[in-house]
C-alpha cells in the first residue's frame, strides 16, 4: 500500500493547482473549464475519504451541472460584453487581500491540526437510525438523510423549489408563464443528436439503478436524481427537446411532489407511529423508498429548470 500516500499528495497538489488556475485565469471560459476539472479532482479526493456518495454528488452536481450553469450564463452574458471594461484592482489591494486570505486559510489549517482527539462522532446514532426506524437500510448515509435528519432533507427540497421560484421571478413580467430560452440556438450536428439519443436512455437507466441501490450501497435519491437531471439537460442541449413552459401543470406537480409526499408521510408518522417523521416499524423501508422515488422526480425536474433560467419569451396564446 505504498502507492496510495503518493497518490494522495499528487491529488492534493493538483486540486490546489487547478483551483489556483480558475482564480487566476485571464478569461471566463478558461476558468470555467478549470472549474469542471477541479470538480472531477474533488470527486477523487472524496473517494479517498471513503465517501463515494459525496463523490458522486460532487461529480454530478458540483462539477457537471454547475459547469453547464456557468457556461450557459457566460454565453448569455457574452452578448452584453461590450459594456464597461474590467477594472484591474491595484497592487496594495492585492497584497492586503492576499494577507487576509492567508490569515483565514492559516487559521482554518491550524484549527484542523488541533481537532479534538478522540474525535467526536455521531456514527453510533446513525447506526441506530440505520437499524432502528429506517430498518433494513444498509447505506448509513441514506438512513441519516431519510430517518435521522429527515427534517433537514425535506427542508432542503423546499429550498430547491424556492430557488426555482426565485430564478423564475427574475424574468421579465411579460414573459411569465413562457418557456426559458433554449440551451442551444442553432440546429445541432448529427453526432450531437446521436450522442444525446443514445446517452439519454442509458443514463436514465443508470440513474434509476443508482437511486435503487442507494438503500443498501452508495447512491440514493440525490445522486440518481442529479444523473436524471443531467440526462434531461443533454436532450435540451442537443435540441431534442426545448425547455418546458414554466406554467406547465405537470412540471409544477413533479417539482412539488418530493417535499409534499415527504411532508404528508411525516405528518402521518405523527399520527400512526407516535412522533413526527417516525416511520411505522416493519414497513419503514418501502415507505422510505417511495418518498425517495418522488424526491428523485423533484430533483430531476428542478435542477434543469434552475440551469435553463427565467422564462424569456412572451407566452404565445
Amino acid at each position, binding site marked *: 500500500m505504498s502507492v496510495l500516500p503518493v497518490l494522495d499528495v499528487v491529488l492534493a497538489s493538483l486540486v490546489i493547482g487547478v483551483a489556483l488556475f480558475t482564480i487566476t485565469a485571464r478569461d471566463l471560459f478558461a476558468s470555467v473549464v478549470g472549474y469542471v476539472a477541479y470538480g472531477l479532482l474533488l470527486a477523487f479526493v472524496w473517494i479517498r475519504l471513503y465517501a463515494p456518495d459525496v463523490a458522486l454528488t460532487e461529480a454530478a452536481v458540483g462539477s457537471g451541472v*454547475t459547469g453547464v450553469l456557468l457556461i450557459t450564463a457566460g454565453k448569455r452574458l457574452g452578448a452584453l460584453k461590450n459594456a464597461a471594461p474590467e477594472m484591474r484592482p491595484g497592487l496594495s489591494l492585492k497584497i492586503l487581500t492576499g494577507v487576509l486570505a492567508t490569515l483565514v486559510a492559516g487559521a*482554518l489549517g491550524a484549527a*484542523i491540526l488541533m481537532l479534538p482527539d478522540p474525535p467526536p462522532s455521531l456514527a453510533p446514532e446513525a447506526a441506530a437510525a440505520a437499524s432502528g426506524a429506517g430498518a433494513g437500510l444498509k447505506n448509513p448515509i441514506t438512513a441519516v438523510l431519510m430517518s435521522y435528519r429527515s427534517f433537514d432533507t425535506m427542508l432542503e427540497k423546499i429550498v430547491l423549489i424556492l430557488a426555482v421560484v426565485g430564478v423564475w421571478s427574475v424574468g421579465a413580467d411579460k414573459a411569465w408563464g413562457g418557456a426559458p430560452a433554449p440551451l442551444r440556438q442553432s440546429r445541432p450536428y448529427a453526432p450531437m443528436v446521436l450522442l444525446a439519443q443514445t446517452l439519454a436512455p442509458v443514463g436514465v437507466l443508470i440513474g434509476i439503478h443508482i437511486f435503487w441501490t442507494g438503500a443498501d450501497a452508495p447512491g440514493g435519491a440525490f445522486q440518481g436524481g442529479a444523473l436524471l437531471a443531467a440526462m434531461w439537460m443533454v436532450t435540451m442541449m442537443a435540441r431534442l427537446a426545448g425547455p418546458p413552459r414554466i406554467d406547465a401543470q405537470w412540471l409544477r406537480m413533479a417539482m412539488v411532489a418530493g417535499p409534499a409526499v415527504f411532508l404528508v408521510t411525516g405528518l402521518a408518522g405523527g399520527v400512526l407511529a407516535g412522533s413526527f417523521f417516525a416511520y411505522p416499524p416493519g414497513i419503514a423501508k418501502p415507505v422510505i423508498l417511495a418518498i425517495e422515488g418522488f424526491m428523485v422526480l423533484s430533483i430531476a425536474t428542478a435542477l434543469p429548470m434552475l440551469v435553463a433560467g427565467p422564462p424569456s419569451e412572451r407566452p404565445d396564446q
Partner: protein
Amino acid sequence: MTPSVLAGLTGAALVGLGLYGLILHPHPLRKLLAFNLIGSGVFLVFGIVARRGAAAGFRFDPVPQAMVITGIVVAFAASAIAVALILRLSMQSRNVTLDAEVWTRPNGGDAT
C-alpha cells in the same frame, strides 16, 4: 501526515484561494466561481471530520457526509439564483462588473 489531515489542509487552502478571488475579481461570474471554491473547501473540512469520526463499525461518520450531500445541492441552488440575478442586472444596466467605481461614475449605472 494522514490522508485526512492532508485533505483538511487542502480545504483550508481552497478557502483562502476562494476568498482572494471573491474579493479581487470585478467580474460577477468569477466572484461566483470563487465563492464556490470557498464552499467546496468548507465541504472538505466537513469530510475530514466525517473521516475522523469513524465509529460503530463504519469507516466514516455518516452524519457530516449526509450534510455535505445536502450542502452541495443547496450550494448549486444558490449559484443558480446568483446567475439569474447577475444576468438580469447586466441586462438592465448593460454593465458586466461589480466594480464600485464603475457603478458610482456619473454615467455608469445609467439604466436604473
